[in-house]
Each structure stands twice: as C-alpha cells, then as structure tokens.
C-alpha cells in the first residue's frame, strides 16, 4: 500500500525548488518527504503535516525516497525518516542524502520503545542520528506541535547556505549581480526570518537543536524605541536590564533575554555618554581633529570628537571629518571631502538627538531597519557620504554613503550612526550601491561599538566594506563603484573612534576590516545585509567578529588597512558585526574574544599588506588604537 501512495503524492507535490525565492512559502507549502515503513504512521504524519499546510510526500522505501530526491533536486525542502527500517536503515539513508549534496534538513525519528534499556541508548541513538547529518532527532509518537515547527530547520539551513555562498563568492563576484542576488535573498531571508521570528516570538522559543548558533537579537528601530521608552520610564539611572525587560514585555516584546537587554543598555549608555560628552567639543574640534588625521593619521582623537560631535552637531562640522576621511582615504588630499563626510555625520547626529537610535537619516535609518535593505542603505549611506565629501575623484564618497547606511542597518545603534552618516552622506553623492553595502557594514560596525556612535566611523566602515574597492589599490578608490574610499574613510573614522577609546569603534574597525577583507565588495556588502536580516545566524557571527575587532583595536586598525583583503569572513564579520553591533555590541564587547579579533585582524592585516594598496592605511594606524586594545 505503501509506495504507491508515496509516489503518487510526490509527483503531485513536486515543484521546482528555487532557493532564494521560495521562502514566501514558509511556513506554508514546505515540501516534506517522509520515509517510514509503517503505513499507519505515514498516514498519521501526513495528516498532521497537511494540517499545517505542508506538502507531504510519503514513502515506505528508502531507495524510492532517494530516487525521488535525486530526480528532483529542489523537490523537497525537508525530509523526515525513521531510523529503524527493514530495508535500509535510517542512518544509511541519512548518509545517502548527504551524498546527494542536497542541502536540506533531515529529521530522523524513532520509536521510543525501540530504545532498549536506558536513557543512554537514547542518547546514543540521538548522537548517531546527528552524526549522520540529521538536523533533529525526534521520538515517536510525534506530537503535532513538533511537526508544526519543522520549517524552522529549513530556514536555518537556508541561512546557512546563503552565508556559505557569500563566503564562497569571495572576490571576483560581479558586484551588481551579487547585489541583486543578495537583495533577493536578503528579502527572502528577511521575510522568512521575520516570519520565523514572528512565529517564534508568539510561541515559546524552541531553539533549533540543529547546529544553529543561538539566534542573535536584532535591535530594530521599533525594538529600540520600545527599549528607549522603557529606559526613560525607569529613568536612565535606574534602568536595570531586568526592569527594562519587564517593561518591554509589557509592550509585547518577546524573545528578549535579560542579557540582550543588558548589552543593549550598555551600548545605549555609552552612546548617551558620548553624545553628551561630545557635544561640548562638537563645534570646535570636530572638524579639525578630523582633518588632522587625514594629514597624518586622521587625528584619531578628532575622529572621536567628530563622531560625537557629529552626533550632536548637525552637519556643520561634518565637513571636517569628511575631509579628514577623504584625505585619509584615498583622495585624501581634499579636506573638503572630509568635510563632506563630516557633514554627513553631523546631520546624522542631529537626528539622533537623545535618541539612541538617531533615526534621523530617514533613508538610511529606515533602510537600516529593514535589515534587508541594508545594501540599499549602504548605498545610501555611501551616497550620503560621498555627497558629503567631495572626495576628490575618489570613489570614497560612495563608500561613505554606504557606510552610513550599513550602520543603520545595524540596527538601532546603526540608526544613530546612520543618521549621522546620512548627514554625512549628504555630502556624498555618488555612493555606489555596492559600497553602500560596505558602508552599511561599516556604519553598523561603528555604531555597534557603542552608543557613542562613531558616526564617522560607520560611514567609513561601509566604505571599507567595499573592500573590493580597496583591493583596487588600497586607495579609497572603491573597486566597486561604491567607492572604496568611503570605506577608507570609514576606516579612518574608525580609527578615530578607536583612538577615542571607542570600543565601538573597535567593532567598527572590525567591521571595517571585514569589509575590507571582502574584496569582493559587492559581496561583502551583500552578505551583510542578508546577514543582518538574518539576524540570528549571521549576526552572531559578525558580532563576534566585530567584537573581536573591538578588542583588538590595533588589529582592527591594521585590518582596516588591509582593505584590500577580501575575506569572506570579513564580510561575514562585517555583516555580522554591524547588525549585531546594535544589539550585541554590548554583549559582544563583553564577550569579546580578544584573541580572535586579533588574529583576524592580523590576518587581515597581513593580507592588506600584501595588497598593493596605494592607500596607505598605515597612516591610519593609530598608535592609540593599541591603547584601546
């Protein structure tokens, strides 16, 4: 009775499986293949799955199942199989499936009574299942609720593979193409992720047992707003994570842990501090310090000031920073560029007023929120940057602009930065889209470091991201249209920030580096957005990296220099860093794995050195960075 059912059903349910675009089906319409020798069970499971709008194909024979999988590579998105089957053992089936190189999650299950003696057996069986590549291991009888949530494995798998793709795409990716792809996948990821998040938030968070990293919390604009509202309600001094969390939960925010809140709070506090502290100097030194660095090393300090100030001072002082940046970056020579950049910042800051998020830069910020549009944002950021800076002939501008965006993307923190950046970006006109991604990253990174948005940094960061740009020649000339230079600027900004002791900056640096590393800038950028959107997975990674960077100020700096080096990891790093930066900055900082960042940076650094960068980032190598570390 068996196979017939399965085969018939499968042909009916088989569809073309399009990776990037099929998330619109999640969770509905997921194509499931169930393999079990027990027809009664199959029938039951099929019914259950159909109840949750899955498309089911059942099969009692493993060989038939395999052939079905083979025939239609995209036919199924998830496989469930029994491990105790007469013909082919479930484990074997698992192996065969992985041989087929189909990257779909497989859930194996078994009868509980098959476990012979004790709990140990159960554990062994489970381990065996996992070892053979199963995403999860369930016990019969299967509960409908469990069945309902198997789609999460698919999402995870998708995210993973997207990320892998990004990494692989590495350098020589066609920027535009990637952007487009990324945009699509980002969209899909974002939507699926969102959907997933929505669902998860509604129900108890059932963390994937598969090899998923703990999902990162993305501090979206709304979330941040709620956070800020909660904090304000409690009073900034009295705001403790626990109470904030309680308040936020009252606002129907779920899925946050105290830790998330705590880290975010820390970042927020830093941001506030920076903002308040910088405002005094805002008008003055903002520009000059910024400028200085350019000459020599972008006056790190000024950078910081810049950042702060830029935050506080809307646009005016930006000019300087941008100039500084511009100078430092590639074109360098034009103070005006720096100004431009700075301009970007001030505006951004302006927007930020007292808001952690400084969602002032509308475009950028909004973009930020939509993680997905990170790339877009990046571009915007970059653009704004670029505009701000009349980078002399360098593509920096675009990077800058982009940077701004990325920051936004990073999330709330980013928003702030973004606003700053956006302001800066104003100066930038031509921010190549690609660079925006980078910028975005950068920005994010920058923001991440802390509340004190190193606005400038963010912008810079994005630029860096377009490491591709860097590769071109170390100059800001962004390989990507984006304006590598922007990255550079971001980079310089980062440094500045770093100098100031911004941890955040560090993160930014990290991000920056990351971006740099990703020579295939477009990719990097893209990666980030998807990453960002996919919060959980990517972010974590990025954040981790960024943080690492954070700790390793020095390394970051160097890494930045290494713009040329395109590293997939960088990309990820950046991406991860940025988005997470907002939320996880705090956390990250805490968990900064100093060693890791250092290593990363060093590597990056080395790479950079290898690159024949006209851009002499070494100038940016602020000794002060060491202090930060």
């Amino acid at each position: 009775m068996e196979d017939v059912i399965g085969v018939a059903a499968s042909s009916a349910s088989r569809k073309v499986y399009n990776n990037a675009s099929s998330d619109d089906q999640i969770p509905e319409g997921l194509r499931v293949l169930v393999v079990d020798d027990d027809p009664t069970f199959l029938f039951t499971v099929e019914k259950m799955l159909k109840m949750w709008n899955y498309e089911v194909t059942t099969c009692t024979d493993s060989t038939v199942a395999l052939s079905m999988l083979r025939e239609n590579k995209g036919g199924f998105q998830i496989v469930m199989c029994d491990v105790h089957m007469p013909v082919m053992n479930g484990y074997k089936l698992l192996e065969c499936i992985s041989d087929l190189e189909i990257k779909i999650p497989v859930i194996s299950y078994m009868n509980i009574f098959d476990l012979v003696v004790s709990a140990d057996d159960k554990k062994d069986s489970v381990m065996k299942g996992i070892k053979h590549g199963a995403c999860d291991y369930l016990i019969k009888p299967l509960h409908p609720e469990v069945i309902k949530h198997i789609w999460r494995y698919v999402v995870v798998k998708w995210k993973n593979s997207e990320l892998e793709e990004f990494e692989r795409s590495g350098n020589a990716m066609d920027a535009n193409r990637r952007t487009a792809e990324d945009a699509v996948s980002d969209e899909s990821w974002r939507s699926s992720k969102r959907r997933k998040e929505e669902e998860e938030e509604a129900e108890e968070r059932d963390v994937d047992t598969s090899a998923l990293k703990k999902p990162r919390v993305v501090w979206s604009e709304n979330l941040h707003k709620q956070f800020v509202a909660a904090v304000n309600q409690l009073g900034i001094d009295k705001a403790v994570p626990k109470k904030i969390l309680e308040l936020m939960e009252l606002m129907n925010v779920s899925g946050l842990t105290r830790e998330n809140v705590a880290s975010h709070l820390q970042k927020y506090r830093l941001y506030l501090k920076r903002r308040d502290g910088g405002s005094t100097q805002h008008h003055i030194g903002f520009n000059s310090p910024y400028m200085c660095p350019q000459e020599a090393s972008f006056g790190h300090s000024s950078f910081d000031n810049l950042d702060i100030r830029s935050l506080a001072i809307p646009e005016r002082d930006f000019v300087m920073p941008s100039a500084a940046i511009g100078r430092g970056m590639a074109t360098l020579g034009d103070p005006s560029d720096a100004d431009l950049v700075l301009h970007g910042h001030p505006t951004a800051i302006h927007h930020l007023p007292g808001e952690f998020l400084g969602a002032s830069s509308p475009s950028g910020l909004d973009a930020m929120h939509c993680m997905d549009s990170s790339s877009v944002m990046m571009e915007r950021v970059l653009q704004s940057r670029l505009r701000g800076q009349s980078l002399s002939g360098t593509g920096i501008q675009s990077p800058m602009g982009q940077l701004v965006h990325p920051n936004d993307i990073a999330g709330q923190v980013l928003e702030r930065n973004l606003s700053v950046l956006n302001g800066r970006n104003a100066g930038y006109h031509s921010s190549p889209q690609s660079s925006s991604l980078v910028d975005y990253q950068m920005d994010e990174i920058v923001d991440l470091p802390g509340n004190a948005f190193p606005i400038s940094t963010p912008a810079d960061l994005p630029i860096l991201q377009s490491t591709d740009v860097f590769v071109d020649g170390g100059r800001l000339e962004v390989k990507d249209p984006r304006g590598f230079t922007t990255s550079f600027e971001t980079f310089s900004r980062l440094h500045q920030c770093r100098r100031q002791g911004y941890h955040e900056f560090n993160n930014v640096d990290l991000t920056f580096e990351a971006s740099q590393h990703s020579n295939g800038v477009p990719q990097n950028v893209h990666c980030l957005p998807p990453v960002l959107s996919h919060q959980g997975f990517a972010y974590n990674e990025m954040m981790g990296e960024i943080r690492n960077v954070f700790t390793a100020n020095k390394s970051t700096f160097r890494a930045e220099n290494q713009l040329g080096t395109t590293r997939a990891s960088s990309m990820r790093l950046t991406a991860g860093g940025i988005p997470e930066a907002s939320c996880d900055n705090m956390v990250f900082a805490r968990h900064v794995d100093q060693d890791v960042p250092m290593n990363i940076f060093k590597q990056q650094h080395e790479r950079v050195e290898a690159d024949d960068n006209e851009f002499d980032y070494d100038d940016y190598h602020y000794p002060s960075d060491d202090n930060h570390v």
Partner: protein
Amino acid sequence: MGSNQLKTQLATMRDALFKQGFLDEQFIQLEELQDDANPNFVEEVVTLFFRDSVRLINSVEQALEKNPPEFDKLDKYMHQFKGSSSSIGAAKVKSETSLFREYCKQGNAEG
C-alpha cells in the same frame, strides 16, 4: 433519538476503552486532527491500522507455527506492530507487543 442513543453508547465505549487502557493520549491527538476537512480521519487511520495488523498477525502466526518459532522475524513483526499501535494510541496492543518481544528475546515460545 436513535442517534443520540448511539452517540451516548459510543461515548461510553470510548471512555471504557481509555479506562481499560486500550487507548491512550495518542488517540486523542488523532481525534484532534480530525476536522471538517477530514471528517473521517480517525476512522481512516484505524482502518489502516487494522488492515496492517491483520497482515502482521498472519505473519506472526506463520512464524509461530514453525518449530522452533522464528524469533527474529517475530521480533521484527512485533516491532512494526508496536510502532503502528503507538501511532494510533492503541496502548494495550503496544504493551502486549512489548511483552511478546520480551518473550521472543528469551526464546520463550510458550509466552
């Protein structure tokens, strides 16, 4: 009236089955799966089960008739049977099969 009576009878029987341990929670879940779109879900599942078990029981009988009984095969059948019965919530059947399997392991033909 007639139908009410039947329904009452049905409910009573059902309760009895549960009380006596013939059925367990899994059965309830199956019932939950039944809805307007699938009005006869439970019936279908149970029918399937019966059909399958008839087949199994026949094979078991055959295996038992041999001398000595083929315990490996019996074990396999029981395993399957156990799976099916637990899927539909036939608790008692499930426990019987477990017992049966124990005997198989011991080589206890009498059991």
